[in-house]
Protein backbone atom coordinates (compact mmCIF):
# COMPACT_ATOMS: atom_id res chain seq x y z
CA UNK A 1 0.00 0.00 0.00
CA UNK A 2 3.10 2.19 0.04
CA UNK A 3 2.63 2.98 -3.66
CA UNK A 4 -0.71 4.59 -2.83
CA UNK A 5 1.03 6.94 -0.37
CA UNK A 6 3.89 7.80 -2.72
CA UNK A 7 1.73 8.42 -5.79
CA UNK A 8 -0.70 10.46 -3.72
CA UNK A 9 2.22 12.59 -2.54
CA UNK A 10 3.64 13.21 -6.02
CA UNK A 11 0.23 13.95 -7.55
CA UNK A 12 -0.57 16.37 -4.77
CA UNK A 13 2.61 18.38 -5.33
CA UNK A 14 1.98 18.57 -9.10
CA UNK A 15 -1.61 19.70 -8.65
CA UNK A 16 -0.75 22.33 -6.02
CA UNK A 17 1.98 23.83 -8.19
CA UNK A 18 -0.47 23.76 -11.13
CA UNK A 19 -3.09 25.66 -9.13
CA UNK A 20 -0.60 28.30 -8.16
CA UNK A 21 0.52 28.64 -11.77
CA UNK A 22 -3.07 29.08 -12.96
CA UNK A 23 -4.00 31.75 -10.41
CA UNK A 24 -0.69 33.54 -10.13
CA UNK A 25 -1.65 36.38 -12.48
CA UNK A 26 -5.20 36.84 -11.20
CA UNK A 27 -6.06 39.85 -9.13
CA UNK A 28 -9.09 39.49 -6.88
CA UNK A 29 -9.51 43.09 -5.81
CA UNK A 30 -13.26 43.49 -5.49
CA UNK A 31 -16.35 41.31 -5.38
CA UNK A 32 -17.05 42.17 -9.04
CA UNK A 33 -13.64 40.86 -10.11
CA UNK A 34 -14.42 37.37 -8.81
CA UNK A 35 -16.41 36.06 -11.80
CA UNK A 36 -14.15 37.43 -14.57
CA UNK A 37 -11.17 36.11 -12.64
CA UNK A 38 -12.66 32.63 -12.28
CA UNK A 39 -13.50 32.65 -16.00
CA UNK A 40 -9.95 33.66 -16.81
CA UNK A 41 -8.71 30.91 -14.53
CA UNK A 42 -10.95 28.32 -16.20
CA UNK A 43 -9.56 29.30 -19.61
CA UNK A 44 -6.05 28.25 -18.55
CA UNK A 45 -5.39 24.60 -19.52
CA UNK A 46 -3.19 24.13 -16.44
CA UNK A 47 -6.16 24.55 -14.09
CA UNK A 48 -7.94 21.60 -15.76
CA UNK A 49 -4.88 19.40 -15.47
CA UNK A 50 -4.41 20.45 -11.83
CA UNK A 51 -8.12 19.87 -11.16
CA UNK A 52 -8.02 16.38 -12.70
CA UNK A 53 -4.93 15.55 -10.67
CA UNK A 54 -6.70 16.81 -7.54
CA UNK A 55 -9.68 14.51 -8.25
CA UNK A 56 -7.37 11.52 -8.83
CA UNK A 57 -5.61 12.43 -5.65
CA UNK A 58 -8.86 12.57 -3.70
CA UNK A 59 -9.61 8.98 -4.63
CA UNK A 60 -6.05 7.90 -3.79
CA UNK A 61 -6.35 9.73 -0.50
CA UNK A 62 -9.54 7.81 0.26
CA UNK A 63 -7.52 4.61 -0.20
CA UNK A 64 -4.76 5.96 2.05
CA UNK A 65 -7.34 6.67 4.75
CA UNK A 66 -8.83 3.18 4.44
CA UNK A 67 -5.40 1.66 5.09
CA UNK A 68 -3.58 3.98 7.46
CA UNK A 69 -4.36 5.87 10.64
CA UNK A 70 -5.29 9.47 9.89
CA UNK A 71 -2.83 10.76 12.45
CA UNK A 72 -0.02 8.76 10.78
CA UNK A 73 -0.83 9.41 7.11
CA UNK A 74 -1.61 13.09 7.45
CA UNK A 75 1.64 14.37 8.99
CA UNK A 76 3.60 12.32 6.46
CA UNK A 77 2.41 14.85 3.94
CA UNK A 78 4.64 17.48 5.50
CA UNK A 79 7.16 16.21 2.93
CA UNK A 80 4.89 18.06 0.50
CA UNK A 81 5.37 21.28 2.40
CA UNK A 82 9.12 21.29 1.96
CA UNK A 83 8.90 20.29 -1.71
CA UNK A 84 6.17 22.86 -2.43
CA UNK A 85 8.28 25.56 -0.81
CA UNK A 86 11.23 24.66 -3.02
CA UNK A 87 8.81 24.55 -5.96
CA UNK A 88 7.78 28.13 -5.14
CA UNK A 89 11.37 29.22 -5.47
CA UNK A 90 12.11 27.23 -8.62
CA UNK A 91 8.92 27.97 -10.58
CA UNK A 92 7.71 31.29 -9.18
CA UNK A 93 10.96 32.99 -8.14
CA UNK A 94 9.79 33.32 -4.54
CA UNK A 95 12.13 34.44 -1.79
CA UNK A 96 13.01 31.75 0.70
CA UNK A 97 14.35 33.72 3.64
CA UNK A 98 15.49 32.62 7.10
CA UNK A 99 11.97 32.99 8.54
CA UNK A 100 10.57 30.57 6.01
CA UNK A 101 13.37 28.00 6.41
CA UNK A 102 13.34 28.12 10.20
CA UNK A 103 9.54 27.99 10.29
CA UNK A 104 9.51 25.10 7.83
CA UNK A 105 12.14 23.32 9.95
CA UNK A 106 9.97 23.64 13.06
CA UNK A 107 6.87 22.45 11.21
CA UNK A 108 8.73 19.47 9.70
CA UNK A 109 10.18 18.54 13.07
CA UNK A 110 6.71 18.73 14.62
CA UNK A 111 5.33 16.55 11.81
CA UNK A 112 8.13 14.00 12.26
CA UNK A 113 7.21 13.71 15.92
CA UNK A 114 3.62 13.10 14.81
CA UNK A 115 4.63 10.41 12.30
CA UNK A 116 7.06 8.46 14.47
CA UNK A 117 5.48 9.21 17.82
CA UNK A 118 8.99 9.26 19.38
Amino acid at each position, binding site marked *: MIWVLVSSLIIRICSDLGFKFAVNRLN*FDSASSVIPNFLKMLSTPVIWIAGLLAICNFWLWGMVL*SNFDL*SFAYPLFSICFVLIMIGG*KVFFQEQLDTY*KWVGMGL*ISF*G*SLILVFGL
Partner: protein
Amino acid sequence: MTTSKSTLIKNHIFFIFLPIVFSVFGEFLLKFAANETAITPDKAGLILFFTSPPIIISVLSIVCAGLLWVVGLSKFELSYAYPFLSLNYVAILVGSRLFFGEQVTLTRLVAMVFIIAGLIVISRSPYSESEGVKDAN
Protein backbone atom coordinates in the same frame (compact mmCIF):
# COMPACT_ATOMS: atom_id res chain seq x y z
CA MET B 1 3.26 49.06 -4.57
CA THR B 2 0.19 50.62 -2.99
CA THR B 3 -0.75 47.96 -0.43
CA SER B 4 1.51 47.42 2.54
CA LYS B 5 2.21 43.96 3.87
CA SER B 6 -0.02 44.41 6.90
CA THR B 7 -3.06 45.53 4.85
CA LEU B 8 -2.63 42.61 2.50
CA ILE B 9 -2.57 40.14 5.34
CA LYS B 10 -5.46 41.76 7.19
CA ASN B 11 -7.67 41.80 4.10
CA HIS B 12 -6.91 38.39 2.71
CA ILE B 13 -5.89 36.15 5.57
CA PHE B 14 -9.45 34.68 5.55
CA PHE B 15 -8.61 33.15 2.24
CA ILE B 16 -5.95 31.13 4.00
CA PHE B 17 -7.90 30.24 7.15
CA LEU B 18 -11.40 29.55 5.76
CA PRO B 19 -10.13 26.89 3.32
CA ILE B 20 -8.51 25.16 6.28
CA VAL B 21 -11.83 25.08 8.16
CA PHE B 22 -13.68 23.65 5.14
CA SER B 23 -11.04 21.08 4.35
CA VAL B 24 -10.76 19.88 7.95
CA PHE B 25 -14.52 19.40 8.03
CA GLY B 26 -14.29 17.50 4.73
CA GLU B 27 -11.42 15.34 5.98
CA PHE B 28 -13.31 14.28 9.08
CA LEU B 29 -16.36 13.35 7.10
CA LEU B 30 -14.15 11.41 4.69
CA LYS B 31 -12.43 9.56 7.51
CA PHE B 32 -15.81 8.80 9.05
CA ALA B 33 -17.03 7.37 5.73
CA ALA B 34 -13.78 5.48 5.09
CA ASN B 35 -14.07 3.89 8.51
CA GLU B 36 -17.53 2.59 7.59
CA THR B 37 -16.68 1.20 4.15
CA ALA B 38 -13.47 -0.35 2.80
CA ILE B 39 -12.41 1.59 -0.29
CA THR B 40 -10.61 -0.70 -2.71
CA PRO B 41 -8.51 0.17 -5.80
CA ASP B 42 -11.02 -1.33 -8.27
CA LYS B 43 -14.23 -0.33 -10.08
CA ALA B 44 -16.48 -1.29 -7.16
CA GLY B 45 -14.37 0.84 -4.84
CA LEU B 46 -14.54 3.78 -7.23
CA ILE B 47 -18.35 3.60 -7.52
CA LEU B 48 -18.76 3.11 -3.78
CA PHE B 49 -16.48 6.07 -3.15
CA PHE B 50 -18.26 8.55 -5.41
CA THR B 51 -21.85 7.59 -4.51
CA SER B 52 -21.72 7.71 -0.71
CA PRO B 53 -23.54 10.80 0.68
CA PRO B 54 -20.97 11.66 3.39
CA ILE B 55 -18.24 11.40 0.77
CA ILE B 56 -20.21 13.68 -1.59
CA ILE B 57 -20.65 16.27 1.18
CA SER B 58 -16.99 16.04 2.05
CA VAL B 59 -16.15 16.53 -1.64
CA LEU B 60 -18.35 19.66 -1.75
CA SER B 61 -16.71 21.00 1.38
CA ILE B 62 -13.26 20.40 -0.07
CA VAL B 63 -14.36 22.06 -3.34
CA CYS B 64 -15.45 25.16 -1.35
CA ALA B 65 -12.09 25.10 0.35
CA GLY B 66 -10.42 24.94 -3.08
CA LEU B 67 -12.34 27.95 -4.44
CA LEU B 68 -11.42 30.09 -1.44
CA TRP B 69 -7.86 28.81 -1.55
CA VAL B 70 -7.54 29.97 -5.17
CA VAL B 71 -8.11 33.56 -4.06
CA GLY B 72 -5.57 33.22 -1.24
CA LEU B 73 -3.08 31.59 -3.57
CA SER B 74 -3.32 34.49 -6.01
CA LYS B 75 -2.52 36.95 -3.23
CA PHE B 76 0.27 35.25 -1.33
CA GLU B 77 3.52 33.55 -2.22
CA LEU B 78 3.18 29.78 -2.33
CA SER B 79 6.02 29.42 0.16
CA TYR B 80 4.17 31.76 2.53
CA ALA B 81 0.59 30.49 2.25
CA TYR B 82 1.24 26.77 1.93
CA PRO B 83 2.77 26.14 5.37
CA PHE B 84 -0.43 27.44 6.95
CA LEU B 85 -2.06 24.25 5.77
CA SER B 86 -0.15 22.54 8.56
CA LEU B 87 -2.78 24.04 10.88
CA ASN B 88 -4.80 21.15 9.49
CA TYR B 89 -2.60 18.81 11.54
CA VAL B 90 -3.40 20.67 14.69
CA ALA B 91 -7.11 20.67 13.91
CA ILE B 92 -7.00 16.98 12.94
CA LEU B 93 -5.24 16.08 16.20
CA VAL B 94 -7.83 17.90 18.26
CA GLY B 95 -10.66 16.47 16.16
CA SER B 96 -9.41 12.88 16.13
CA ARG B 97 -9.48 13.04 19.91
CA LEU B 98 -12.97 14.56 19.97
CA PHE B 99 -14.70 12.55 17.24
CA PHE B 100 -12.80 9.27 16.94
CA GLY B 101 -11.49 8.95 20.48
CA GLU B 102 -7.89 8.60 19.28
CA GLN B 103 -5.21 9.29 21.89
CA VAL B 104 -3.56 12.71 22.05
CA THR B 105 -0.34 11.96 23.88
CA LEU B 106 2.17 14.38 25.36
CA THR B 107 4.47 13.88 22.34
CA ARG B 108 1.65 14.89 20.01
CA LEU B 109 1.03 18.01 22.06
CA VAL B 110 4.74 18.82 21.77
CA ALA B 111 4.50 18.31 18.01
CA MET B 112 1.59 20.75 17.88
CA VAL B 113 3.66 23.35 19.71
CA PHE B 114 6.48 22.97 17.15
CA ILE B 115 4.07 23.34 14.23
CA ILE B 116 2.43 26.44 15.68
CA ALA B 117 5.84 27.95 16.51
CA GLY B 118 6.92 27.29 12.90
CA LEU B 119 3.85 29.08 11.57
CA ILE B 120 4.48 32.09 13.80
CA VAL B 121 8.05 32.28 12.47
CA ILE B 122 6.90 32.00 8.83
CA SER B 123 4.20 34.63 9.32
CA ARG B 124 6.98 37.08 10.19
CA SER B 125 8.65 36.68 6.80
CA PRO B 126 8.59 39.92 4.79
CA TYR B 127 8.19 37.91 1.58
CA SER B 128 4.48 37.16 1.64
CA GLU B 129 3.05 38.93 -1.36
CA SER B 130 2.65 37.11 -4.65
CA GLU B 131 4.53 38.51 -7.70
CA GLY B 132 1.25 38.85 -9.61
CA VAL B 133 -0.13 41.19 -6.95
CA LYS B 134 3.03 43.30 -7.05
CA ASP B 135 2.78 43.64 -10.85
CA ALA B 136 -0.83 44.74 -10.67
CA ASN B 137 -0.15 47.48 -8.15
